[in-house]
Structure formats: structure tokens, C-alpha cells
């Protein structure tokens, strides 16, 4: 138990960027827009978060800046996919390439710098609970925000009017449109908000997790998030499970490396990615009989009102 607590605690910490990215992508995809630009958006979010935190000395301003940059990237994606009715996959991939390149370029001057970043704030009372306390309630505030976001999104999708309209738009935009929902407005809004949340995931990497800037620091987490969305069947709670699983294996392999095992480091570094995909694949195959509800039926398809289908 004693050895487990630090690993579980680290699991939550290193799972959080992926959790934000996955939640953001779920928000986007629920409306029927596929955004494969997560990796790029996370990197630019990480950069913006770090740069603004560094220059203002306020980590929260950094987070806000990251969210704002994310919504701008979401706006571009929405413009291409909704207004121009372009190919969503191509637009997303372009976003990834752009974000990767731009963040490296912009971040050149910040390499090697560190910031104080976000501090740990133990939650009074809750953090005293054995095991659960240190694992879940002895973190920075952005982690607590992510818990809240998971609960909020579950509630939002299932119990609110806007959540219902969002799901309708992603499932059957033709029907949503015929019932008077504005498909374009809905898709724009949630693509922007979703991308903003993704960018906060990136900012968590630089502002809270490592408290520094490094090129390509998200190291493929954006892609893991894309996969997680599917395995989580667009369910925020399952997304949290997947993200912490990744974080757990990551923490475990770091500890193994530190302990100096004979297993080559690259193999250990592959572990979190392999395990997450493996476990979730296993779960979805077991559950996969019949129709999987949750997948927005019109995901990735542009909507043309006057076109027949």
C-alpha cells in the first residue's frame, strides 16, 4: 500500500493533461465535428500557458491564455469544417502540424526556463482520508477543476437542454436542423470550447506538471486522447478512467527507470501507450456487442441542408 500511494498520486497528476484533452475532444465530437488537431492544440496551449505565466508571473493568467488560444484554433477548425465544409481529418492533421511547428518556433527562447507554476493546495479534511486523501485531494487546483469538469460534463450531456441539442446535432444534424436547432452555431461553439479545454490540458503540462517549457513536450498525448475518446465511448467518466490508467503506467515506468532496471528505457516509455490502448481495446471488445451508443452518428460529416442523402 505504502508504495502504491505515490504511484497513484502521480497517476492522477500525469493523467490530467490527457484527461483535459479527452474531455475537450468529447465536447467537440458530441456535436459531430472530429478534431484530430489535439496534439498541436495541446502544444500551443502548453506554450501559451508557459509564456504568459512566465511573463506575468501569474499561472492562472497562463491557463486562461491557453484556453483562449485553444478557442482561436477551434474557430479556425470550425470555419474550415462548418462554413467551408472541408475535410475534417485534413483540417485536424494540418492543425497538429501547425501547432507542433509553431510551438517549437515560438518557444525557442523559453527552453530551459522554469516557472513557479501552480502550487499544491491540499483540500482540508478530505486530504486527511487515508489513501484517497493523498491520492485525490493533495494536488493543485487545476486537478480539482478536472474532477469538477468530469461531473459537470456528464450532467450537462444528459440533463440539460443545451446538452441535448448538442447530442442531437452530432447524431442527426438533419433532424436537429428540421427541429429549429442551428447546426452551424452549435458546431462552432462547441468546437471552440472543446479546443479550449484541450489547450488547458496542454497548459497543465507546462504550468503545473513540469513547470517548464520543452519542445514537443506533450509527446503524443494528444493522439492518446483521440483514441481515448473512442474507447471511452464519448463518456466523460470512462475518459477519466482511461486517462488515469495512462498516468498510472507512466508513473510506474518512471519509477522502474529510476530504480535502474535492465529493461531498455524506450520499451518502458512505450508501456503507458500500449497498456492504455490494450486495456481499453479489451474493454470495448467485451462491451462491443450490439450497437455502441455514444458515438455521434454523424461524426466527421459536413452538413448540407439542401443536399439529399
Amino acid at each position, binding site marked *: 500500500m505504502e508504495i502504491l500511494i505515490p504511484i497513484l498520486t502521480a497517476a492522477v497528476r500525469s493523467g490530467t493533461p490527457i484527461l483535459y484533452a479527452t474531455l475537450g475532444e468529447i465536447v467537440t465530437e458530441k456535436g459531430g465535428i472530429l478534431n484530430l488537431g489535439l496534439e498541436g492544440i495541446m502544444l500551443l496551449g502548453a506554450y501559451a500557458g508557459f509564456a504568459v505565466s512566465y511573463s506575468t508571473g501569474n499561472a492562472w493568467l497562463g491557463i486562461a491564455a491557453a484556453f483562449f488560444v485553444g478557442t482561436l484554433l477551434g474557430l479556425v477548425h470550425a470555419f474550415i469544417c462548418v462554413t467551408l465544409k472541408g475535410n475534417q481529418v485534413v483540417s485536424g492533421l494540418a492543425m497538429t502540424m501547425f501547432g507542433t511547428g509553431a510551438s517549437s518556433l515560438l518557444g525557442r527562447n523559453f527552453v530551459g526556463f522554469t516557472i513557479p507554476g501552480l502550487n499544491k493546495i491540499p483540500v482540508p479534511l478530505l486530504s486527511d482520508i487515508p489513501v484517497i486523501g493523498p491520492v485525490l485531494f493533495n494536488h493543485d487546483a487545476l486537478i480539482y477543476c478536472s474532477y469538477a469538469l468530469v461531473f459537470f460534463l456528464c450532467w450537462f450531456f444528459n*440533463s*440539460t*437542454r*443545451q446538452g*441535448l*441539442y448538442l*447530442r*442531437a446535432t452530432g*447524431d*442527426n444534424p*438533419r*433532424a*436537429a*436542423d*428540421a*427541429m*429549429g*436547432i*442551428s447546426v452551424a452555431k452549435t458546431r462552432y461553439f462547441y468546437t471552440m470550447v472543446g479546443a479550449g479545454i484541450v489547450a488547458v490540458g496542454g497548459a497543465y503540462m507546462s504550468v503545473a506538471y513540469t513547470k517548464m517549457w520543452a519542445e514537443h513536450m506533450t509527446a503524443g498525448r494528444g493522439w492518446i486522447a483521440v483514441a481515448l475518446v473512442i474507447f471511452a465511448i464519448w463518456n466523460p467518466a470512462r475518459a477519466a478512467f482511461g486517462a488515469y490508467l495512462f498516468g498510472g503506467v507512466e508513473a510506474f515506468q518512471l519509477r522502474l527507470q529510476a530504480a535502474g532496471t535492465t529493461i531498455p528505457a524506450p520499451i518502458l516509455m512505450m508501456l503507458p501507450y500500449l497498456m492504455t490502448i490494450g486495456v481499453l481495446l479489451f474493454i470495448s471488445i467485451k462491451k462491443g*456487442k*450490439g*450497437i455502441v*451508443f455514444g458515438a455521434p*452518428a454523424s461524426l466527421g460529416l459536413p452538413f448540407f*441542408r*439542401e443536399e*439529399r*442523402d
Partner: protein
Amino acid sequence: MDARAPSKPLVRMEKITKRFTGVTANLDVDFDVRPGEVHALLGENGAGKSTLMNILYGLYRPDSGVLTIEGKDVSFSSPRDAIASGIGMVHQHFMLIPSQTVWENMILGLEGLSSVLPKRAIRERILELSSRYGLSVDPDAKIWQLSIGEQQRVAILQMLYRRAKILVLDEPTAVLTPQEAEHLFVTVRQMTSEGHGIVFISHKMDEVMGLSHRVTILRKGRLVGTVDTASTTKEKLAEMMIGQKMIFSIEKKELQPGKPVIECASVCALGDRGIPAVSRATFMIREQEILGVAGVAGNGQQELCETLVGLRKVESGAIRVNNEELTNSIPKTFIDKGIHYIPADRKGTGLVPNMNVSENSILKRYWSRAVSKKGFIDWKEVFSFARGLVSRYNVSTPSMETPVRNLSGGNLQKLMLGRELSDSPIAILAVHPTWGLDVAATKFVREQLLAAREAGCAVLLVSEDLDELLAMSDRLAVMCKGEIMGILDSPAETPVEAIGLMMAGTPAEEALASAPRGGGKS
């Protein structure tokens, strides 16, 4: 109905024109709806009925023309505006969200609801409306769990929930059983008595004659005329519709069935959701005969046909074609043996919507020598083959390169029928082949199936239209909940009540014993 003075129209459409690439769907069409009336809209497939109503509902923007609602000029930029003006529409293909519940579908797009949904209030209003108009639904059921008839009730309730004053019903009865249709008419009458205006689109002349006050006829996008129903006849309407006289009856030759072509022994299969859909189906279809399959849609007819062409796994039992065991063979084997399939789902299983007419016409024979040379497609052959199909089966299409998604329902069906019949099949499985077709196209399809039978084909005809089944079938199987309740050897002499009872799950002997003897339809 005659007590109505010609009151001010609720809605008036003047000189409406709408063009799509290659077709003029509406040209200078005038149309109006008065309070308390049922205004029927008639026309062949592709005449432009749905287009005109989609314009009224704000889905399409007209190229020109004027729309007035209760005397005021309006211009709709989206269905939202139309809904706000009191216009509701139940579409030919329902626009519901399958994964959501009835009550969730009910409030889609509604303004002025609190963000946290007042489920109880919504449910109460649904129940109140459904009892007032006789549209019973379970507010908590998911749409995908509902039958087509129930889904339609949801779609109508959606509009009533929005207090629609004008309700457009686009071919509402095409997918309903006779009982469900009767039920719908009661609802429609209730609505007109409250002053609603109803637009009713249907290809079934008897319904139009029985339900409507006025009829407007469109032909090839143009207005032919508007007449009072009381002063016209079925035959006159049909003539206005197709521009020539039309004989409704079809001729069926007496034929002696030959040897069995398809034999099914205790076939069981699962539905899409893993629940048993077909249980112990045992029957055969012989050369030169039509075996009708009656039953309410969703009772395993579709799944049964899919097992017979290799599209669905047979869990137990055996399928034999010309004495050869083919259980669970791949679809290509069935096609090579000459078993052809006309699915109900024309744009899903039958044709590829985004591919063009000529490509679709060779989908099932791309490997045959006629259209391919050394593995390459011989496009010249393909075009001449497609042109042949199109002219022999009267498919009206702007060109051979038109994607089939732009064809109207009747023309899709003709194209598919042509493709399936052109390979001289030994058996045809036709599922709802006349769904949504106009009178002329319906007659055409029926004649083609009868011609196939005369040519020695074994035909399985799944339909919900009992009149069609009684007119076409040599024998009639009745299905309920995946089971064949009985196979009638002389369906035309069986009382309709008995067939109705069997459709509801009564075994054949019991049903025949309890229904009064006597010939044919009662």
C-alpha cells in the same frame, strides 16, 4: 365538411419555383391551405411534392415566389422561422434522433425552456397531447425501440407540441399498417375540427378520396390544378397526375408451380441487437409462384430475407437452393446461384447513393465478362448496359452520371428492379417493393414481379399492404414476432380477419376457426 365557408387561407404559396442541378423541381406552383381542411397533394414520384413542402417548412429556399402566412408576406431562412410561424412537417423519412428518448426528441430546438430540463412537465404535456389526439406513446422509450408507426406518432406529437397550426404530412401512410393508418385519420380529423390545416401527401388514391377536402395535382414540377375532392373521382385524379388514362387492375395468369427453388428448414436468426428475430422458419418457394409474407413491419421479415441471401448469420436450421445446401454461404454464392434481393432499404443495402446511375447498374455484375475486360471495367459496355436498363424500366434520370441519391423514390426502385431482373434470376426476394411509389410505378413493379413469375422465377414478396399481397400471392405466409404463424394455400379465399388475427400472433388453425368463413375481402 361542406359547412366550411371558403375562409381566408392560413398559408398561401404563389408562383413558387425551385431548381436543382439538372432538374426543375417546382415551376410557378400556387398552393394554399385553409383552416379546418385537409388539402391533399398528389403527383408521381419526382413531381416535386416534397420539394414544395420543404420550401414551406423553410428547409429549401425557393428561387422565386411568394409565401404568405395569414395574409403577411414571410421569408423563411430556416425551419426555425417556419416553426415560429406555426408550420409543422412530418417528413417522408422521419427526422428523429434514434439514440434519444421520446421526450428528449419532443423538445429539440424549443426556445424558452429552462436549461435544466423540467422532465416532469414535459412528460405531462406529452401525455396530455397524446390522449387528446389519440397518439399513444411512452415518453421514456428510446426512438430506436419504437416501431415505425410509433415513431410517426412521435413526429406528429413533436409538431403538436410546438402548437403547429398547419401540419404537413409527407406520405404518412406509406409505412403504416391499415389499422395504424385508420388511427392516423382519426387524429387528422380531430385536428381539422380544431381548425388546423393539414397537407396530406399520399400515393394511395383511396386515402386521398376519403380524407381530403381539396386536391392539388403536380406533374413534373408544374401545377396541373386544384379540385374539390367531392367533385372528382379516383380515375380523374390519376389522369391529371400522369397525363393519360390509367387502368388500376393488374392481370395475373393461372400457373402451376414447379419444383422448389428455395427451401428453409427451421431457420433461426438474431436481429441487429442480438435478440432472436427469426425462429424456426420452415417453408419453400417453388418455380412460377409468389409466396407472400404478411406481417407488421419489424416482425422478422427483413431478417428472414437477409438469411436467404447470406447477409445474416443463420444460427440454426438449413437453407437449400435447388437441393444444394447453402446455409451461411457468402452473398456472392447466392448471387451466383441466381437468388436476387430487392431490399426495403434502397439507399443503404440496395444502391450506393453517391455513385452514379451507370455504376449502380453494374454493382452486382462487375465481375461478369460483359462489363469487364481482364479485370478492367469496360465503361463503354457499362454505359450501354445502363442506358438499356434505364430505357427498359422507364427510369427518369437527368443523365447516366447523376448520383442516385438525387433520384426520386420511384426511380430508385425501378433502377434496382431493373438491375435485379436483368440477370434472369431463379428467385427474387422483394421487401416492400412498392413502398412510397406512385400508382403508375407501383403497377409497373407489380407487373414486373408477375412477369418474373411467368418466366419461371420463384418470388418471395414481403409487404405490409394486404391488398397487394392478396392480389399477387399464390400462397401467403403470415409472420408475427419472428415466427411463421401459418402458410395459407389460397389467401384470396381466406377471411381478412383471420389474416389480421395471425398477424397479431394467433396460430393459423385458431384464427381460421374463429373468423367467419366466406370469400375474399369483407
